[in-house]
């Protein structure tokens, strides 16, 4: 793989963006719970019938749940999973783990970050604070090292987590692929540094001059981004600050049982509506 991605215009359709992810790939998904997740792309993975994907995310919710529901995932590395708000646990994720359909590597959010940092920093492991007394290190076979500088302290070290793709939902991109996020970037920044490639779904494309006016607002520079698609309201039914809030009635409809509810939910999504009108 090349070190960087340079192309005059990296914009592709959502379909093409999803087709770049092969069966069996590991994907880190940006955002947190119902907020600014790359949900349009997640749904497109379902439409394309992907299989055996591995999801990596500190705080997945709707994304991991719908991918479990559609049989797309075989493995997950996650810190905390829930639909949040009044919805509680993620029901199809729960079923997938309890039945063994999906294999879980349970993390603390910060240990998953440590693994991503090891990959991003180019080192074979990364110390992670805390974890003392937790059963998670033994469960995952993590090692504990004594401070070689003699403080007498010891620290758990996490092996690298290097996703094949980091998939982010952003407010703005330019044609070169620079990425801007309003509000918190959650874990997106470290995911982008740890992954082999970054794919972006954005609300809109703006002129490169907008980025040059305030370069410190750019979370991911263009050369790390392989390709992107523009999907207005693509983080639906979640929020994308400050453009739109969570569509709670749509989340409630999604949570109704049955294949019909899932099919209706996929058809109701903004990217499907746009395709239908095109």
């Amino acid at each position, binding site marked *: 793989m090349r070190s960087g991605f340079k192309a005059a215009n990296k914009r592709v359709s959502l379909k093409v963006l999803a087709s770049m992810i092969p069966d069996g790939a590991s994907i880190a998904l940006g955002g947190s719970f119902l907020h600014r997740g790359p949900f349009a792309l997640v749904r497109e993975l379902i439409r394309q019938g992907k299989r055996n994907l591995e999801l990596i995310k500190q705080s997945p919710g709707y994304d991991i749940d719908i991918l479990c529901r559609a049989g797309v995932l075989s493995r997950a590395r996650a810190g905390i999973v829930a639909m949040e708000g009044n919805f509680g646990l993620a029901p199809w994720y729960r079923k997938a783990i309890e039945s063994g359909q999906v294999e879980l590597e349970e993390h603390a959010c910060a240990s998953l970050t440590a693994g991503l940092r090891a990959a991003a920093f180019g080192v074979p492991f990364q110390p992670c*604070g805390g974890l003392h007394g*937790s059963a998670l290190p033994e469960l995952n076979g993590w090692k504990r090292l004594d401070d070689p500088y003699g403080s007498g302290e010891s620290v758990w070290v996490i092996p690298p987590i290097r996703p094949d793709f980091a998939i982010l939902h952003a407010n703005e991109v330019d044609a070169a692929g620079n990425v801007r996020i309003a509000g918190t970037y959650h874990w997106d920044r470290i995911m982008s540094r740890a992954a082999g490639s970054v794919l972006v779904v954005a609300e809109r494309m703006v002129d490169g001059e907008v980025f040059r006016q305030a370069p410190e607002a750019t979370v991911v520079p263009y050369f790390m981004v392989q390709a992107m698609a523009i999907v207005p309201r693509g983080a639906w039914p979640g929020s994308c600050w400050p453009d739109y809030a969570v569509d709670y009635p749509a989340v409630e409809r999604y949570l109704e049982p049955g294949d019909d509810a899932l099919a209706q939910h996929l058809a109701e999504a903004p990217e499907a509506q746009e395709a239908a009108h095109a």
Partner: protein
Amino acid sequence: MPESWSPFSYIVINLARFIRPNEITFSGVNSTFPMLACLLAKRAYDWDFIYINVAGGVDPQPSHIPLSSSDPVLAEGSASIFANEDFYDLCTRGRMDLSFLGAAQIDAQGNANNSVIGDWHRPKVRLPGGGGGAVMMPTARRACTWRTEHSRRTFVEKLDFCTSAGGFHGVVTPIAVFVKRDGRLALQSWHPESRLEEVRERTGFSFDATGARPTEPPTSGELRALAQLDPDGRFERDAAVRLR
């Protein structure tokens, strides 16, 4: 006549009472009660503290109170974004004074299970998972939690899985407030409509109750602040907390 508690106000206000002046206090994902407690403390008390949250907010002034405790509206009015990596690093380097963390099961030492009911490899119920607790509980100066149900299923002699060790400083339920003393949870106070015997009956481990007494009633300032946060009672209805 003193003001009285509802089961909902009891949890929110007693969580807020763990917050101390000028300290750095954090509320996270899946944490409606701590979010309300932090926003209440900002309004109800005549002192201030440093409130940071999982939406990246630092002393935010949200235009409305969101259903989701990680909603980006919780960074409205914030002069900076202190993102996820930042607040975890702050905690592990020992400068998080108070972190609120969820827990499904709690033992006598205040350790927590948020992973699984049953055997981890053959789960009866898969719970949300490691989350913030495993790293924040042993490294925050104080960690506090809440349960909307007070029962022997929640307060257990032995955890099904130890997700987070180190122990909570404080725990609030609809009927009681516990604080850690000499390495174990001790009863600090109970809901005036409950009794010490009831707390003992509904707790799966033994605890010290020396000095414990009925919880001080809410102040009018606390209740006024809560009414501002939940003017139409939606949060209280959604939470559906009951004394018994």
